[in-house]
């Protein structure tokens, strides 16, 4: 291939095109101006979404990555532009979201001089990136970006940040084309699968009387939903999910026994401490899932499938660690395990489900109270969407309720900030989610606290015309903290009483249609109107002020000490 002269900035954009990253979320500024100048001529090949804040940009990139399965790309300038990415990087790191963030940097000769908008973003982001690198010479750009995209999406995915000094963006060099990266000698994206672990795991499963499968986002990230379904179906095992595993298995699958963890379902939590073999697939035993570790599944033999060797034995000691990509390991296990009927064991789960329904769920989704509940809102959304929508949630009570009650037919339908618990995530993530899945209905379910953290992204919706349904569940409190203060701090409500603006008016100011529902009789109609509306729509639903999310495993308690009230 004949070489041609390109600037560093053009090479960055060529890399994005070559990697299929046609949608970019970003915000310009001094140190990234050459890239934005080049972007001016790439408008036909790349779609740049101008956000209102870099944090909004990176959360949008995350939402995009989660629904599309592709790498999210984010542009930001140096200094404050770059530091505004940090929360999103930390979120993407802990939730294994593939991102490539490009930040501008001051001229190389000014590095270390406290130049205008200079910040040491490489060192700041080191603990919250899978990899980061500073480029000061344009000739490095094609190779480093190829490496960045490869690292972001391969193995256990994660965020990568590439900092490019302004001189490198401007510099012209002989461009020899773009070669994607598929090997780095010091980097092993997935461990080699060994037969002996597969055999040991198969033996344990075949001899198990009461096996329980618990699965996380690894199934989705590994694009192994089909393999996973075959695996659990062959031997009839019940399967419970973590918050990020949600939607990998359809809600109505007969072996889907519900959610794990602090606000998970009754059966899977209690029965974690009664199963004889616990099979963990692509999940990392977060403390919100395990509760008190020294009382977690002590009776069980544990099989742990993970692509990341450092996860095995990190929190829970595995009897058999099955290193590898679950897309490859699950079929090997399926091959070896026997077909079994475990309906008696599934019945035990059904009994717990019934108990939970009677004591907890029924009143949440069909409340007898005058006040509306979050659970009934989600039930009506389910009835209207039939489980086909992408649900994007923020953090707090509405998040737990949505994850507990929303119904899903297909994978990559649940977008939430799991590990980091980033309030303000949902609105920008919903925007990104819609760009990542333009043919699907995207509903952002957000609390009255979280919406106010990134409400400026209504401007992004206004300008792009992206069709996002925003549903604010307003309980006039920072609800989850209030719940804890009620339960554990003797109702000393310390700074959880939060006021809201008139959201419908705010939406109107941004040219977004909206409505507010304060009475149950208007609820169904309002949700139907929102979903039928062409274009974005904001619906505020006033829900009970002091409702609590139950069941709950109180902090420091074992999963079997889960409270229904």
């Amino acid at each position, binding site marked *: 291939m004949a070489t041609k002269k390109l600037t560093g900035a053009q090479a960055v954009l060529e890399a994005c095109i070559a990697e299929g990253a046609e949608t970019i979320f970003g915000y310009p500024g001094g140190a990234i101006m050459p890239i934005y100048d080049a972007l001016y001529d790439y408008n036909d090949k790349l779609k740049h979404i101008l956000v209102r804040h870099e944090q909004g940009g990176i959360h949008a990139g995350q939402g995009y990555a989660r629904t599309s399965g592709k790498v999210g790309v984010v542009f930001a300038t140096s200094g404050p532009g770059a530091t505004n990415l940090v929360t999103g990087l930390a979120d993407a790191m802990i939730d294994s979201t593939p991102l490539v963030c490009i930040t501008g940097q001051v001229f190389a000769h000014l590095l270390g001089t406290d130049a205008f908008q200079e910040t040491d973003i*490489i*060192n700041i982001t*080191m*603990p919250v990136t*899978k*990899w*980061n690198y*500073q480029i000061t010479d344009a000739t*490095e750009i094609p*190779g*480093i970006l*190829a*490496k960045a995209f490869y*690292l972001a999406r391969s193995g256990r995915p994660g965020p990568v940040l590439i900092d490019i000094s302004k001189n490198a963006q401007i510099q012209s060099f002989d461009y020899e084309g773009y070669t994607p*990266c*598929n*090997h*780095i*000698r*010091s*980097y*092993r994206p997935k*461990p*080699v699968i*060994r037969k002996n672990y597969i055999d040991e795991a198969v033996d344990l499963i075949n001899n198990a009387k009461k096996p329980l499968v618990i699965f996380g986002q690894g199934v989705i990230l590994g694009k192994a939903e089909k393999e996973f379904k075959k695996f659990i179906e062959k031997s009839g095992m019940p399967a419970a999910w973590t918050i990020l595993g949600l939607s990998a298995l359809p809600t109505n699958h007969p072996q889907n026994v519900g959610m794990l963890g602090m606000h998970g379902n009754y059966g899977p939590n209690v029965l974690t401490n009664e199963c004889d073999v616990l099979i963990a697939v692509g999940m990392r035993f977060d403390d919100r899932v395990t509760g008190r570790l020294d009382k977690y599944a002590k009776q069980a033999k544990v099989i742990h499938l993970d692509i*990341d*060797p*450092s996860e*095995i*034995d*990190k929190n829970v000691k595995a009897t058999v*660690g099955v*290193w*590898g990509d679950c897309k490859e390991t699950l079929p090997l296990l399926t091959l070896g395990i026997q077909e079994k009927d475990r309906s008696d064991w599934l019945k035990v789960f059904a009994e717990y489900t019934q108990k939970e329904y009677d004591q907890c769920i029924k009143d949440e989704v069909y409340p007898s109270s005058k006040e509306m509940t979050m659970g009934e809102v989600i039930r009506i959304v389910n009835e209207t969407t039939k489980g086909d929508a992408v649900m994007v949630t923020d953090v707090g009570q509405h998040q737990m309720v949505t994850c507990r009650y929303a119904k899903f037919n297909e994978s990559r339908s649940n977008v939430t900030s799991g590990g980091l618990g980033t309030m303000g995530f949902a609105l920008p993530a919903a925007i990104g989610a819609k760009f990542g899945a333009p043919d699907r209905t995207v509903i952002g379910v957000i609390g009255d606290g979280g919406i106010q953290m990134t409400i400026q992204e209504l401007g992004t919706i206004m300008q792009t015309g992206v069709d996002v349904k925003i549903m604010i569940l307003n309980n006039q409190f920072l609800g989850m903290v209030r719940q804890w203060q009620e339960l554990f701090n003797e109702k000393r409500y310390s700074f959880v009483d939060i006021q809201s603006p008139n959201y419908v008016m705010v939406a109107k100011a941004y040219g977004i249609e909206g409505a507010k529902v304060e009475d149950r009789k208007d609820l169904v109609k309002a949700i139907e109107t929102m979903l039928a509306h062409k274009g974005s729509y904001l619906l505020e639903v006033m829900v009970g002020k002091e409702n609590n999310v139950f069941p709950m495993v109180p902090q420091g308690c074992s999963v079997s000490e889960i409270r229904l009230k």
Partner: protein
Amino acid sequence: METNTEKQEYTITVYTENQVGLLNRIAIIFSRRKINVESLNTSPSEIAGIHRFTIVVMESRDVVLKVVRQIEKQVEVLKAYFNTNDEIVWQELALYKVLSEEITEKVKVERLLREYGARAVAIRKDFIVFETTGHREETNKLMKALEPFGLVEFVRSARVAIIKESSGFHEKLKDFEQREPSEDVIENEYLGKREAVFTM
């Protein structure tokens, strides 16, 4: 009986690419967990272009195992090993500066050198610099011996260590922890063939 939760000295050996910032990435793994690094050394390894870190920590086996896995997870890290003191041969180097006047008057220097295996690496009219290599206890002994005579400066290097059972990085350790999946030798084929594979 050694348990997995008892603290003892571990020497972590890390083979890495030579890359700016990697030292910080590795250091963060320790500081994030509030683990104090007792000693840290970086040097070339037996393979050209590959760096070798030697890190000493006082920790339990459980903690060290997890830390080592986190280190291995870093993109530019090829391999990390951890060993107890009986599994390695190690040395530290120490330098001692004393005033010539003081020491020559009060001590029989040649006896001192013999007794502690020390060498005089600089002899000047005003001061002398001694050097010893050895384990911590040995270098400490000479420090103690010199203290009464006005030890002006003392400095000790980080530990460098050779793993007894290692046949070098050319052939990765075979008796590495059994459940360790990274025993695959695939990427070994690329070692020393830097140009043949994707590089920075």
